[in-house]
């Protein structure tokens, strides 16, 4: 009764479903015709700030953003 169900190739390569799904979406967006492509690229923009915690205090945050300086 071991669950050795066939895993999809991306799962076998260590990728999660979300990563797979986002890659698919990006590829589709890159193949759009012009006005739609610009709108779509807007949707891909990511902006987040990440800070590691050590000894109960957050260290200096790193900012990862497609719109730096915001």
């Amino acid at each position: 009764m071991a669950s050795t169900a066939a895993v999809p190739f991306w799962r076998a390569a260590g990728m999660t479903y979300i990563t797979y799904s986002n890659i698919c979406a990006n590829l589709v967006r890159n193949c759009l015709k012009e006005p739609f492509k610009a709108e779509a690229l807007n949707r891909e923009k990511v902006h987040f700030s990440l800070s590691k915690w050590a000894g109960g205090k957050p260290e200096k945050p790193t900012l990862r953003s497609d719109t730096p300086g915001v």
Partner: protein
Amino acid sequence: MFRQASRLVSRSITAKSTTNRAFSTEVPSTIDSSFVEAWKKVAPNMDPPQTPSSFMKPRPSTASSIPTKLTVNFVLPYASELSGKEVDMVIIPATTGQMGVLPGHVPTIAELKPGIMSVHEGTDIKKYFVSSGFAFLHANSVADIIAVEAVPLENIDASQVQKGLAEFTQKLASATTDLEKAEAQIGVEVHSAMNAALSG
């Protein structure tokens, strides 16, 4: 291990019959009256708190006879493409192949692969290319389809698709690590699906 199985199974059955929770489609949106009374005793001037379910419309319950139309909710992260639309049939690109969904379809959760989804309403057929997602088909003939990216076929640029396909086929041949191979494979799949969608 299996000696305990019958005991566990019977235990779960009896537990189920005592704590019989209704499906969300069957419970009307009632507010717990004993809670409200207790609240009023403690804080008579404040309204009792609302719960999320009081804001939601109750889902249509499972009809005893098969309804004539399928209600489709097709949502993307940034927009709700179709919301509560009544249609005759949808064909979704499940990983197991193109799946036709009619009203009264057996409840299913289907993972979608990159492909064409078509919505049939009378003689009207609307096609979208879906990048990936899930489709939840409920017993009450409501279909919830969620995708990350879905575009009408006219918006896809054929030359870019060809370029992408060639690029990823080449990457697949030259990939070394498992991860690179997987990414190249995804590229090939998505672009071939788009190619097939445009030509088919």
